């Protein structure tokens, strides 16, 4: 009670309230810079490297880490460090693409289900549940395998099995929001539903969507590498991290660095994104209403 009386008269408490927002902004800024840096390294890092990712050098096969090859070379004499940098484009970029398309699809389906009447809701949600019933990787292996192992088919398969969590989240959040007082006010004030959706629903779903999306992104990296490792994803000689692991598996005893570095790259990347996502969720507050699955 006393706090509110203070709030009415003192500017300081107001500032305190915004401090949280500033924290968040600073964090988002840092996160953005970090992501940009990683993307810059992943996309232009190979320019710094004197080697090409896919050109073999048979004189230097399976050489251990040295000054010339920081992380060693693989069975065809290709520089592992260079290939790891290239692999970043594949793993991070493809996962970004997949989750982005999935998020857009899921958001649209969730909004339609939440706003366009009972029939649409029932049909779309049963459809979502049906898709949800397939373990992601099993469905992806089947689709990618039946269509023929290739990068494009893997991307298609992962998009097909990845949109449901977004649909569920968006639906439940938007149904919750529609009954919030400020949306009721907007409706009473005669705002058209599209504007309500755009101005009142979407911005308030955004933070939760972002948290879910970081989660999906890191999971997608694991899926891509996993599928490639099983031979259903990115095909050799492309330097995807999972595909590199598959290469390295055969030389595990003689040249373990072939499989250690790509795996470590996956682990670190996923870990970093997960931690960023956790921090993001903490900062955005405990208003995460159900995360789909």
């Amino acid at each position, binding site marked *: *009670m006393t706090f*509110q*009386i203070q*709030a*009415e008269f003192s500017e300081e*408490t*107001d500032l305190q*309230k*915004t401090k*949280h*927002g500033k924290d968040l902004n600073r964090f988002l800024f840092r996160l953005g810079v970090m992501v940009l840096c990683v993307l810059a390294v992943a996309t232009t890092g190979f320019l710094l490297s004197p080697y090409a990712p896919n050109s073999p050098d048979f004189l230097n096969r399976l050489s251990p880490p040295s000054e010339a090859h920081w992380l060693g070379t693989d069975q065809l004499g290709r520089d592992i460090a260079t290939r790891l940098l290239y692999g970043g484009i594949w793993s991070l970029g493809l996962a970004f693409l997949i989750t982005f398309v999935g998020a857009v699809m899921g958001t649209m389906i969730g909004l339609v289900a939440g706003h366009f009447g009972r029939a649409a809701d029932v049909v779309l949600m049963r459809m979502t549940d049906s898709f949800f019933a397939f373990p992601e990787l099993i469905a992806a292996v089947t689709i990618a395998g039946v269509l023929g192992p290739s990068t494009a088919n893997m991307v298609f398969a992962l998009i097909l099995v990845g949109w449901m969590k977004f649909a569920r989240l968006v639906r439940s959040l938007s149904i919750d929001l529609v009954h*919030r*007082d*400020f*949306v*009721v*006010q*907007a*409706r*009473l*004030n*005669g*705002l058209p539903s599209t504007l309500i959706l755009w*101005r*009142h629903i979407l*911005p*308030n779903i*955004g933070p939760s969507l972002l948290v879910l999306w970081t989660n999906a992104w890191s999971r997608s990296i694991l899926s891509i590498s996993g599928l490639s490792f099983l031979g259903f994803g990115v095909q050799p000689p492309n330097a995807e991290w999972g595909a590199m692991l598959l290469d390295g598996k055969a030389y595990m005893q003689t040249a373990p660095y072939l499989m250690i570095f790509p795996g470590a790259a996956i682990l670190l990347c996923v870990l970093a994104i997960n931690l960023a996502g956790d921090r993001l969720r903490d900062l955005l507050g405990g208003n995460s209403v159900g995360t789909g699955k």
Partner: protein
Amino acid sequence: MLRVENLGVRIHGETILDAISFCVQQGQTLCIAGESGSGKSSLLRALNGLLPAEFGSLAFHPKSSEPTELEGRWRGVRGLPGSRWVMQDPIAALNPKLPLGVSIGESVFSKNLSATELNDAVSDALSEVELLPELAVRRPSEVSMGQAQRACLARALVARPDLIFFDEPLSALDAIVQKQVAATMRRIQMRYGTTFIIVTHDLGFAATYADHVLVLRNGKIEANQSAGNFFRSPESRYCEELILAARELGGLPEVVPAKQGPGEARSC
């Protein structure tokens, strides 16, 4: 100007409101009192078309907008034209992602004002409720509860409505701020002659501000009297107890002061 007759609302076969009839004159204040769950808020929702009315009729004749007349089953009306609604929790009633000014401006969305006209209208409304126009760029999380409730009041005012519904407008605020906001409400009513329909459970508030009192209990009308009559000789036993309880708690003075204001208690 607002006349409701025999209104009934049923949800999932359960009767929420039954045979509600009352009317309000221009410039008067009607307080709707009752314990929680008595149907006060449901009545407000039904009047604004958020709950389907099972039967009954409604006639609303504002000075400056088209009249609304509804009968039988009605639902899905987007509010009554010429009326606005100020809700209980100002933080919930404002989009946390929008600056206050935009939220306030939405109230006159249908008037298609130009950007400068809209800006002026919002600034005027803000100063009307004793807020600095600079507050228009702040978000709800960056203002105090009192400021937020004033912004909600400004959102109602900017449309120059003839009728404003209030749903427990002060209960989210602490005592000092309550007093200030109530004073602002009173001033606005004096100036524009706006009709107020205020849902409250605070009889002390009703005693000070109401011209007319409507008491609900279990969805039925328990009393429908002018304020003076209500506090002197309530219509039912239940109301007597209600008044007595409020007196014992000290929220209600022994002698209810006569209300000063434009609207003399007239029967209708």
